[in-house]
């Protein structure tokens, strides 16, 4: 069990990094990576939301969607509703968390700010939930996977934003300025992460 968790952890953070090898969550990866401070805020929100979403969605899948019920003699299985239910539940969950945070922890609410609602409908969050379903993980393993994927996302985001801050000060040839050099940098960073591929 401990061994499994360790494999999931390292696999999710380094080897199958969400951004750099699965190409999920590219939008916030490019959108909020201009400054290290916003990248940190986003990372916090992503870790928070993905951990919660993985926990709740895997529990819902295990206890509501995957078991087969019998109503009026017809066997009913609701797995085909998975994506729909997951989207709705994640969105509602984040909304709930936001309301509760605003009441009980204004500083945390201020720090996560706009990033919390932004991340709600992100493919990385839904991706983590769907991957958990596809690989048949238990609730505990799913939560660990979700959290670690988010940490991997945060790692990539923080690395990338630091690179972009440094790029701002460098002399970049005119055709490559802005998004072009950012995408090239992201590609090189992805290649660097390929070096982890034999790890697990």
């Amino acid at each position, binding site marked *: 069990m401990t061994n499994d968790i360790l494999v999931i952890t390292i696999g999710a953070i380094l080897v199958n990094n969400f951004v750099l090898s699965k190409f999920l969550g590219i939008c916030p990866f490019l959108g909020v990576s201009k400054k290290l401070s916003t990248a940190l805020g986003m990372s916090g929100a992503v870790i928070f939301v993905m951990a919660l979403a993985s926990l709740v969605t895997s529990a819902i899948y295990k206890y509501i969607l995957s078991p087969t019920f019998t109503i*009026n003699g017809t066997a009913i299985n*609701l797995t085909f509703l998975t994506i729909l239910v997951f989207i709705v539940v994640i969105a509602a969950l984040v909304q709930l968390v936001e309301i509760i945070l605003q009441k009980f922890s204004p500083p945390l609410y201020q720090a996560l700010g706009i990033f919390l609602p932004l991340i709600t409908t992100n493919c990385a969050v839904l991706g983590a939930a769907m991957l958990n379903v596809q690989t048949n993980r238990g609730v505990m393993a799913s939560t660990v996977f979700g959290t670690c994927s988010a940490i991997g996302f945060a790692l990539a985001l923080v690395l990338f934003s630091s690179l972009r801050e440094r790029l701002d000060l460098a002399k970049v040839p005119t055709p490559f300025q802005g998004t072009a050099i950012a995408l090239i940098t992201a590609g090189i960073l992805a290649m660097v992460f390929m070096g982890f591929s034999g790890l697990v």
Partner: protein
Amino acid sequence: MTIIITAVLFATGLGVFLAVVIGATARAFAVEIDQRVETITGMLPGVNCGGCGYAGCADFAKAIVEGRTIPSQCPVNTPVNITRIAEYLGITAGEKEKVVAVVRCSGSCAVTVRSPYNGIRDCRSAALVAGGAKGCDFGCIGFSSCARACPFNAIEIRDGLAVVHPDLCVGCGKCVDTCPKSLIVLVPATVDVHVYCNSPEKSVLKRKVCKTACIACRKCVKAADSENQMIVNGFLVATNYSNPPLPDLIEKAACPTTALRLASKHASGAYEGVLK
């Protein structure tokens, strides 16, 4: 058929359930927000420059409502809006003198001796490498650290020299700390005459590296209307901002190096190419 009905019922039920839960939570955990804070935030410029000393416009609005500060502490806001805020809360607006930033250097690339520099294009980084690329150790490095810090785009880098546009500058003071040479000062906006040099070195040494340095010839000191309008400090003359000279001092003094300038004309580039 049963499966379709079940799915529809399940999805609807889930939607209704979640809506009720969110609604109930929002009601149960409602945070009371002071409406006045939002109204006042609407009357503030909303650029979050930090010139008032608070974390942002919303934070400043909160501070006004709680009586920790006065509306006129915002250096950016128009007088009309400041009065509106004061009337809205029934408090006094207070007075605040408008200040603008001045970069006390006139050493553009055309007039200073330069050495090559290929490092990071940032003044603070460049200052670590033998004090920057220019000949003068005290002058503007011109890698726009201050211009990047300015939320109002009031600082222009022209020919390797930071120039403040007094009509755009609101005096928030964000640029002041970014200059590794401490060249930027906040001065009253009503004063237009400044000495654009901050080098305390001997006049001969200054002239070797910069054509527009202040050589402390004292022409402006003598031409001034009263004795202490210009202050001499070693080999450097500066405007006395508590007893400022009038703009006509420029013609009367006829500064031989054009270090004595009007901020408004300096910003429009009127002094460029005057010295060959």
